[in-house]
């Protein structure tokens, strides 16, 4: 059996019909809602080739609720006219009538009525003509009788502007017999069930076809954070290249490790309150490696190891100040210091990816915390060519092959080079990282041998997950 009585009736009518039938007409004939017929058409369509249905849209004029009222009782202006007795009516009284306001101005402009302002008890309204013809009502009655086409375009649009008429689009189906037309059709099965499999009834049952255009249901799963997925990829690259991960699980750092150990002078702008988060509690580092601190003090204030130094009054208090690390290079400094204490020297490759902090106010392009990626190689006789070679391999693993290097200045590397890559989308060179050879003023006070060079590079993780 087809689903529901409407579908069944539809099929019977269609069998008898010559060619086809219109869904709206059928609804009228059957005395049911058009929507019920449409539902029947759709359910029959899912059965395959039983029927063919062609969507047609027709436009029709219909009366609005107000239009219906006027067609029945006359226009507002007519109602106003009729309510005025021969001796006239006080304007104030007229305005209180339901049609008063709209009807009064229309009747005035039709010159059916007039106002006498000199009357003793306020303005009074009188008829001007004895009778009138209510054209608006006449026109609306035509539309109601299905003869809207008898009205001119102008008349219709005027009535529409008065919100008495609306144009509605009616979607109907023109239904005709399909190649597999039958009045007795069986319901198709939606899905295969365990019972059908065990009883074997699936062999005799028709199945509803699937709609392969529909979207599937997304799996119910958790997700990894996109930025941290990229972090994993970078970690993987470093591990593939034989780099060991440095401990970076200390957001709090002393100015000593964050700046002084890196030969960043105490008056450097990065050490300003405006750029760095300092701590109120604990405000100062409790322990520093004092003999190393002495060597760092000397290199800043007097020079040494072949350096002129910065020649200023280096202060221990300044180095003790605690802060939220501004780069993970502080962790690299700690790792290199530990490496320097191991004798004999063994070459090392280190990396880290972790959070760093800058005293910024948040906006679309500034974050107060972000992730820094850092790579370090320490060995005898490393050259600038080696640094560029390692960077080439590193970026190749990211799919970046066009690289170019620009001289730059960093306080703790010399030589320093900014890394640029050609951006195919932007059609220009964009900076992708910063790199260099750590200064001897940083390495020698740590106790690393003189002929050991340390090459390093850094980049921001966030940069790789947003359009540049």
């Amino acid at each position, binding site marked *: 059996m087809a689903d529901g009585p409407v579908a069944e009736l539809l099929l019977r009518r269609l069998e008898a019909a010559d060619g086809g039938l219109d869904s709206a007409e059928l609804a009228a004939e059957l005395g049911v809602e058009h929507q019920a017929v449409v539902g029947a058409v759709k359910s029959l369509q899912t059965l395959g080739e039983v029927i063919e249905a062609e969507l047609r849209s027709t436009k029709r004029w219909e009366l609005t609720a107000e239009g219906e009222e006027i067609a029945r009782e006359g226009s507002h202006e007519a109602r106003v006219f009729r309510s005025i007795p021969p001796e006239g009516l006080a304007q104030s009284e007229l305005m209180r009538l339901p049609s008063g306001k709209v009807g009064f101005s229309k009747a005035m402009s039709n010159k059916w009525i007039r106002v006498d302002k000199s009357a003793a008890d306020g303005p009074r309204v009188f008829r001007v003509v004895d009778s009138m013809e209510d054209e608006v009502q006449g026109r609306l009655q035509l539309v109601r009788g299905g003869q809207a086409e008898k009205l001119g375009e102008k008349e219709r649009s005027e009535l529409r502007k008065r919100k008495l008429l609306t144009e509605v689009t009616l979607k109907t189906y023109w239904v005709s017999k399909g190649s597999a037309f039958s009045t007795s059709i069986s319901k198709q099965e939606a899905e295969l069930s365990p019972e059908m499999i065990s009883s074997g009834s699936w062999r005799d049952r028709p199945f509803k076809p699937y709609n392969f255009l529909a979207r599937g249901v997304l799996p119910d799963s*958790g997700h990894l954070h996109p*930025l941290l997925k990229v972090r994993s990829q970078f970690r993987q690259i470093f591990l593939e290249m034989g780099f*060991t991960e440095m401990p970076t699980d200390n957001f709090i750092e002393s100015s000593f490790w964050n700046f002084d150990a890196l030969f960043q002078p105490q008056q450097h702008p990065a050490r300003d309150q405006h750029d760095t988060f300092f701590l109120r509690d*604990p405000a100062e580092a409790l322990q520093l490696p004092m003999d190393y601190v002495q060597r760092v003090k000397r290199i800043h204030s007097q020079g040494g190891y072949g*350096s002129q130094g910065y020649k*200023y009054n280096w202060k221990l208090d300044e180095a003790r100040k605690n802060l939220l690390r501004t780069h993970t290079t502080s962790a690299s400094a700690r790792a290199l210091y530990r490496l320097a204490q191991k004798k004999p020297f063994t070459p090392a*490759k280190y990396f880290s990816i972790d959070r760093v902090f800058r005293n910024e106010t948040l906006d679309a392009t500034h974050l107060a915390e972000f992730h820094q990626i850092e790579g370090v190689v320490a060995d005898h006789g490393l050259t600038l060519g080696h640094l560029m070679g390692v960077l080439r391999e590193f970026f190749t693993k990211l799919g970046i092959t066009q690289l170019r290097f620009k001289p*730059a200045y960093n306080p703790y590397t*010399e030589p320093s080079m900014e890394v640029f890559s050609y951006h195919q989308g932007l059609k220009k060179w964009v900076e992708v990282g910063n790199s260099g*050879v750590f200064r001897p003023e940083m390495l020698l006070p740590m106790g690393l041998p003189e002929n050991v060079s340390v090459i390093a590079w850094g980049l921001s993780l966030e940069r790789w997950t947003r359009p540049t």
Partner: protein
Amino acid sequence: MPTVSVKRDLLFQALGRTYTDEEFDELCFEFGLELDEITSEKEIISKEQGNLKAEGASDVVLYKIDVPANRYDLLCLEGLVRGLQVFKERIKAPVYKRVMPNGEIQKLIVTEETAKIRPFAVAAVLRNIKFTKDRYDSFIELQEKLHQNICRKRALVAIGTHDLDTLSGPFTYTVKRPSDIKFKPLNKTKEYTACELMKIYKTDNHLKHYLHIIENKTLYPVIYDSNGVILSMPPVINGEHSRITVNTRNVFIECTGTDFTKAKIVLDVIVTMFSEYCENQFTVEAADVVFPNGKSYTFPELAYRKEIVRADLINKKVGIRETPENLAKLLTRMYLKSEVIGDGNQIEIEIPPTRADIIHACDIVEDAAIAYGYNNIQMTLPKTYTIANQFPLNKLTELLRHDLAAAGFTEALTFALCSKEDIADKLGLDISATKAVHISNPKTAEFQVARTTLLPGLLKTLAANRKMPLPLKLFEISDIVIKDSSRDVGAKNYRHLCAVYYNKNPGFEIIHGLLDRIMQLLNVPPGEDKGGYVIKASEGPAFFPGRCAEIFAKGQSIGKLGVLHPDVITKFELTMPCSSLEINVEPFL
């Protein structure tokens, strides 16, 4: 990085040729500069204040060039041109000379009282200089650039330049009570006391930034000439009396400060740059500074220093094989006059007073590499053989986060800094109980402390995603920070794992199930014994009474789980029940 703005046509005129924008950009890149922007005064004003204001402004093309922060010799057109011309071997680096005047040498006497406030002073004279409008503007602009950079906004060094012909030496650098300092400052028509000036300049957008340097001192620095005329009140303002103009022929320069080395560098930069326009080009007239101990020093120092570097060291550090002669040539192009000496493998390099940035052989190596061309260096791979190791804590974190996502929870990434309210008030705790580290200088309340728990971050993430279909299941594995006096910095990170379940029902069993799954992954069996884990009824201000349990594993408490207290839920602007779990994962290493 400081940005220098120069008129393109003036630049090309000085360089003796024109470039296309692309060609000039390329030249900058090679030399370590960056052509940041091509603009005009009109464009700048129009961008900042609208087209209307820009009307009538100059549309002369300006190049904005980024200069490395340690190259003070490139902070003006004169220096840029000299650097590039020497680099392209179109000129030889000029030699700067200090000369004695025909008459008496200018003297600046420093009194003892300056010691506590701004103890150092240096001075020099540019004799018979010829300014034009552009040269004059560049002279003023260079001082401004130096003030902003090496001088650290005048805190370390402040520069004063004066028309010497309006003054009469010797000069005295001393300190006075603010009420006793009275003079007509630059751009004013009448005299004011220092007290009045400090008030007036409070609203001066340019000068207000320098007031704090002396504001709370009882005595202010001041420089007088022999007639009692005030030259300047460093580091705030010069006197109108000795103001320099385009027509000034003899300039007296004084720099005062707290950093002697930097004061000398600043003076050297100014005089080397602008002695180009003196009648005797590149000569600077000496001035004596007499310090309180009676010792007299002559400035500017204009010291040339010699360094000897072995050619093979340069080759080895850069990774090239150039002859010593070629290396000497490359260095000479970088304004470092060099020649091969001794056994033929040694290069003697003369470091001019303009290159204060050269403090070690590595700086010389870099310049050789720049002149050679970074992009001409052969790339090679180091032979460094190492075995990679993961940091165990991060390895554990990576394993866990993948499994938590597989368990249907979505990873969040939240800020490590937050407000005191987030970690205390909103969770029903007193801030002193959190052992949080406090930031002394946050710009906003969002960054008052480092988080002591991951929960507030996840609750804020829930609040930001309230429109998403329920249930919301989030987790984060990241660090929190706790004060710890056993650590060198007095604080320690702990790696925490936190998860929340937010739905129409509290879902304690779901969060509990997640804990069971985590323990299964960590190979920790349920049970009271030392190797197992167990949860025990507990209380906590963040939890609904009777719906909180403490988690014990490896013989210690590792965290809590439970249904959050309705007060906590509402304080984080949430409306549904929520259960949470937070543990320290470090015991499982």
